[in-house]
Structure formats: C-alpha cells, structure tokens
C-alpha cells in the first residue's frame, strides 16, 4: 500500500519540475517530426565537375545524362583536371569525371576508353556511392550492351519495396526514446535524492526495497508507454507508416527494453554518488550499446570479435525484433528468440539492481 503514496510523490515531483513535463511532450514530437527526414542512408545532391577532353556529341550525351540525374548536381565543365581537383580541395565539388580524348571515337570502334572518376572520400559513403552511381551512368553511355544486360538482372527489394529509410529508422527511434525515458530519468532521479540527502531519510523508514524501486520505475514506464503511443500515432499521421505486424508486439518489445534500461540505470545510480558520475557512466554504456546494436550499421559487417558482443547487447535483440515486426510484419513466432533473450538479460539486470540497492550497509 505504501507504493501508492510513493508513486503519488513521484508524479507530484515530476509535475512540479519546471522543465520535465515539457520535455516529455516535446521529445516524441521532435524525434518523430525531424529525425526521420534527416537520418537517411541515401546519397543525394552529389556535386560533379566534368573535364571533357573529347568535346564530341558522344561526350556531350554523357554530360547530359549526368545533368538529368536526380542524384547529381552538375557543377559545370572545367578545362583541366587540375582545376577540377582544386574545386574538390576547396569543398565545392564531390566528384570529378574526366572524359579522355577520342572517347566517342573509341566507343564507336568498340574499344574500351579509360574514363577517370575521382571522388572525395572524406565522407566515405558519399564518395563510394557517388562514384558507383557515376560509373553506372558512364557504362550505360559507353557500352549500351552492358546496360542492357544489367536491366535483365532484377533486384527485388523484399519487405521495404521502395527502400524507404523512414520505415527503416522509425523503429530505431522508438529504441532511443525508450532508452532516454526509462534509462536516464530514473537514474538521475535517484542520484538526485542522494545528493539532496532525502534518500537517507527514506532508508530509515520501513519502506521496502521493492516498493522504493518500483515507485521510481513505474512512473517512468508509464511515461514511456505514453511516449511510444504518441510516436506510433505521429508515424501514422505524418508518414502514413504503421507497424506491419501486431501492435501489441511493438509494446511488448518496448516494455522489455524498458525493463533492461531501467534496471541498468538503477545499478549505475546505486554505485554513483554524484549526478556527474552517473550521467557520464550511463552515457558511455549507452553509446556503446547503440553503435554496436546494428542501429546504424549492419552487424554482420562488423569484425568478428565485435560481432560477438551483439549476443549480450539487448539493444541488438530489440532492433532486430522490432524491425522484423514493424517492417516485415513478423508475428511472435519470428521474434521468440529475441524476446526470450531480452527478457533474460532484463531479469538478470533487475536482480542485480535490487541486490545492489542497500538500505543498510
């Protein structure tokens, strides 16, 4: 019964906080309205300089097809390669295409002319994908026969047919929301009570460990559920995206992740004495968990030793499972493995959290 009074207290304190309620409302809105537009792996607007040493109809055609492409911004013709390279150095161009002399003639003769593509690879993705696109266009122009073959190889993009990155990113954003709401807020709350000295007063009352810890977690779990619901509604309203699989599975996964993050946060708060220490440790682990989870980069392309860490990374199981449900429309059966793994890790952390909170030392 004491739980009632403790939870009431937490909600009152959240309400009295000048900043927190605003953040809780603003957070899902900003995340859902802004981030999906920004988090794209697609490369667009690549600035191209062309050095045309041929100046024939053939080379002009090639230049036109670059101009026509959605992916490129044609920056104009340069007279020498050196001049074009200079543009790259000053950051005004991303890729240089050098068309050799007699390009059209050689194509007509059936020879393979040497076209040079120089890309600025400081931003690796942009450089690599830009030059790949460009060579496709060159190939299509120079050797119409290979282009014909390519059109016969059909790539079928399963599940996410239009390679919509928003559909890919929204489940990941849910993970980030859960992490901040159920991981950081309870941690800082408990360390805050330590700094204010009020936790000492709590420790001399007969309040049980469980009641105290649950009173810290339940409010934030409820808030997280609210935030996830808002996120799903916004995704539907703004992008017309809704989970392909059952919605209850999305909520189940979110709650399992909440179990892990809140237990993890509690463990950190039990071992930290200051906010500074708690937030720094928390942030360190969160960044590692996120970058190793496959949220941004495919886990399979990691080095083997790094890939091994994904077996204990709850974020990885979550991302895997939620993408399966959200994008592929998988049911419980498809994600059973991830659900059990998340539950297992969550329970171990929860046990540790309760064990490490000491009312008597």
């Amino acid at each position: 019964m004491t739980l009632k009074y403790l939870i009431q207290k937490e909600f009152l304190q959240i309400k009295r906080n000048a900043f927190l309620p605003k953040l809780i409302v603003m957070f899902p809105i900003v995340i859902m309205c802004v981030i999906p537009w920004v988090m794209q792996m697609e490369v667009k607007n690549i600035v191209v300089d062309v050095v045309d040493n041929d100046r024939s109809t053939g080379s002009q055609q090639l230049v036109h097809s670059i101009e026509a492409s959605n992916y490129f911004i044609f920056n104009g013709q340069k007279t020498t390669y050196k001049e074009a390279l200079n543009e790259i150095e000053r950051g005004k161009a991303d890729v240089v295409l050098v068309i050799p002399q007699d390009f059209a003639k050689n194509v007509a003769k059936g020879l393979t002319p040497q076209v040079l593509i120089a890309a600025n690879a400081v931003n690796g993705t942009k450089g690599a994908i830009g030059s790949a696109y460009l060579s496709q266009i060159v190939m299509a122009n120079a050797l119409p026969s290979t282009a014909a073959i390519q059109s016969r190889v059909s790539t079928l993009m399963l599940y996410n047919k239009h390679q919509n990155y928003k559909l890919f990113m929204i489940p990941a954003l849910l993970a980030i929301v859960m992490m901040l709401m159920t991981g950081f807020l309870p941690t800082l709350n408990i360390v805050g009570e330590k700094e204010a000295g009020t936790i000492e007063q709590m420790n001399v009352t007969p309040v049980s460990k469980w009641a105290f810890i649950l009173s810290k977690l339940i409010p934030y779990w409820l808030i997280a559920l609210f935030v996830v619901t808002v996120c799903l509604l916004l995704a539907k309203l703004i992008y017309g995206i809704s989970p392909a699989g059952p919605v209850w599975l999305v909520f189940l996964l979110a709650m399992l992740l909440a179990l892990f993050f809140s237990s993890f946060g509690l463990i950190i708060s039990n071992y930290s004495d200051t906010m500074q220490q708690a937030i720094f440790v928390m942030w360190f682990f969160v960044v590692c968990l996120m970058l190793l989870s496959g949220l941004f980069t495919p886990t399979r392309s990691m080095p083997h030793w790094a890939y091994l860490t994904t077996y204990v990374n709850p974020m990885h199981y979550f991302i895997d499972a939620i993408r399966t449900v959200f994008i592929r429309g998988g049911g419980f059966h498809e994600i059973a493995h991830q659900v059990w793994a998340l539950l297992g890790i969550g329970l171990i952390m929860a046990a540790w959290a309760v064990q490490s909170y000491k009312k008597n030392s």
Partner: protein
Amino acid sequence: MNAIEVHNISKSYGKVKALDDVSFTVGKGEVFGLIGPDGSGKTTMFRILCSLLCPEAGSATVDGFDVVRKMREVRCRVGYMPGRFSLYQDLTVEENLKFFATLFGTTVEEGYDSIKAIYSQIERFKDRKAGALSGGMKQKLALSCALVHQPSVLFLDEPTTGVDPVSRKELWAMLGSLKERDITIVASTPYLDEVRCCERVAFLDRGKVRGIDTPDRILSEFADIFNPPGIEHESAGKVENENVIEVEHLVKAFGSFHAVDDISFSVKKGEIFGFLGANGAGKTTAMHMLTGLNQPTAGTGRVAGYDIRTQYEQIKKHIGYMSQKFSLYEDLTVAENIRLFAGIYGMSDAEIARKTNELLEQLQFTEHKNTLVKSLPLGWKQKLAFSVSIFHEPGVVFLDEPTGGVDPATRRQFWELIYAAAARGITVFVTTHYMDEAEYCDRISIMVDGKIKAMGTPDALKKEFNQPDMDHVFTHLARQATRSGD
C-alpha cells in the same frame, strides 16, 4: 577613515524586501557582528559588500572604494568566507590554498606570513583532500584561503555553523589575532558566545537595522529573541524504568580506523538523551548504527526491543529520524510531505487527513498547508521535519543536529516541541553543538575520539568535572582529543 560605510542600502527579491534602508559604519580594525534571525538579510548584506550583488538604492564603500563602481579594487581587498564550506572537496589542502592564491595573483610563499598562525595548524595534513577534513579544520583552511591575498577586510558569513564548541573557540581566537594586524572583520553568527566576541554588533530583523551597539547592550535590549527564558521541564518523575536503547561494546571500524570505539550506554523510555561530541568524534556513525543505516563491526545493541544487527527493518518501523542534511522534500507542499511519510508508515488516508489538520493547528500553521516546503524559513522547516518524524508516534526519535543555523528564539520553540514529544512518552535521542541545548537534556553523554568520556545529568557532570557550565565541561573533555579532528 572607516573601513566600511553603508548608506541607506535597499535590496529586494521580487516582493520580499531583503534589506530596507540599512546604514552602518565599521571602523578600521574593528570586529563587527551582523546578527539576526534566519532570513533577516545578513547574507544579502555580505554579498553586496563583496560586490557580488548590486543594491537597488543607497551606496556602500569598502576600504574607501564604492562597491558598485570600483568592483575590482574592492575584490582585491576583501576576503570572503561564505556560510557553506566553499573549498574544493577533491583538492588537497595545499592545492586549495595554491588555487586561491593564484586566483588573486599571488603565491602561497608571498602570503605565508599572514596565514602562518592559522595554516601551520593544518599544514601537516597538506596532502589530505579537503573533503576528508573535520569541520573545524575545514574552517581553518577556508580562513587561510580567504586570507592568503592579505585582504584588509574579512567577511565571514556564519563561519561556524555545524562546528563543535572547541573548534569554534579556536577560530575566534584566530580572528582576535587578526585584529592586531588591523584587519577589519565583519561576521555573522547564531551563537551568543561568538556575538560577545565582537566589539559592536548590528541587529538585523526582516531587512531593517533594529539596533547597533555593544553586544551586551543589544543582547539585553532584545533579550526576548537572543536570551529567551529557559524552558521549564518537569519530566524527572515521568521517565520509566524501562530501557528503550541498550548498547554494549559497540564498534564501527572503517579499515583500521575505529570511528566508534567500544561504546556502551542505555536510554530509558521517555528520556531526552543528549549525545554530544566534537566534529568527527563518531556521533553520526553511532546514530546510523542505531537507526539501521549501518551495520556495527562488533558489539550488540537493541533499539525499541529489536536487535540492531538482524532486526533493523523492524527497528525502522518504531523510530523516527531527522538527519542534519534533511528537511523534507522541498518540491512538495507541507501537506504532501506529511501525507507521504505517514503513508509510508502505513497510516490510512482518513487518519492522515485528520492528524494533518490537528498537527497544523497545533503548530499554528494551517494557512501554509499548501505551501511548498522550499519557500519556508529554515526554522519552520526544522519544526515541520521534527513533527513529521514523530507523526507516526514512534517509540524513539533520533535527531541529528536538528537546530543548526537558527536563532535562539527559534531553537527554544523547537525545544518546546521536543518536550511535548517527551511528555507523550517518546524517547528523544539528540545530537547538538549548542551547549545551552545540552542543558535542556535529561542526561547526556560526551564522545571523544569514538569513546564515551562522560555520561550523566548535566548537573552531575558539572560537579564531576568542577566546571561552571556545560560549555566548559565539553571544552575540558574535547581538548583531550588526540585524533586531531580526523
């Protein structure tokens, strides 16, 4: 020339007038006291004189420089020791001193002569972190840091709150020696013996100067505030012959350091037991063991009939506790705080509502029922925290320095509450640094270096050590400490 001249200074925060047309002057080399209840504007006055705040009206000069227009000059000539410990806890004693010297563009060597008398007492701990020093030593270090740039005026804002009587006496002896070097000192303090160390004092009350005169005249003119009549306490017959707290050979060791070193005592039901000791003598550690926050290393103890080793969760149901750091949840209202703690002790909603109204009426506090605790004055917070700690009618209540930093009249009101609780049969276990409060207790013990050196009624102790009052008894015993404030 006067060292400080204050003319018609006013300052308000929103609707609250912190200072209202305040004027006074302090002569060169004078020891001047600013006294008054909590919230009377003392700290605001200090901050204006240090050029940290701008006054709304009026002007002030320090050492001949205007505090608004000649900020730089003022800051070079002023040493300021704010109320709360102002040093870097993670730096060592020496590093702190060096840092403050650098701030003022000087070096420790250059300023060494001016701080030698004080710093030499703590110099052997120069590699220790400031956070690990005892209260008295922290004050000495803070004073050294405030003096290292050889200021001509020194401001001390309640420098001795939470410091034991012996360390306080040492600090004031040092301030006396500064006078010989013509350093002007302005200090505020809630302790009457310190007020008497000043040459003149200004009594501030709600932002207004009520009087400026020698300490004796001010103290007798405003005797109702500074020297309230003692409280009649007729409990002698009421104490029952049943032990509520029994402790035998209790030890708490942190590594090789014995914070509490083999103490034994017992407290009877309904008794007010004063648990005295210098800073670092082990009082708080002992109290933590009795309240179930800490496990003893050795020895046995029973509180309210339960074993402190094994049944500490049972003990927590039957005690109340008020820590020195705590005064309720600041962001909850008065009624919400009461409701929370009553709820934790398992009281029903109806019972809580009824008792809350009773309590607030009794405290004459009904109109503040829905006020946030953070906007209450310190004295009220303390009274409220005490009332909350006994709201569930515990058998014993533990109070850890409950009255730090408030004026004598407010402390007296607090003790009336303690007597009322004792009359209801609640045993009171209290620590304090105020020796007048020690006289209010039925029985006291004095801890030195983790051991209990004396125990008995105040009168018996005075006789035993042949001293006129508790202050002298305490000083006599605490001076024997060898732990040097670890």
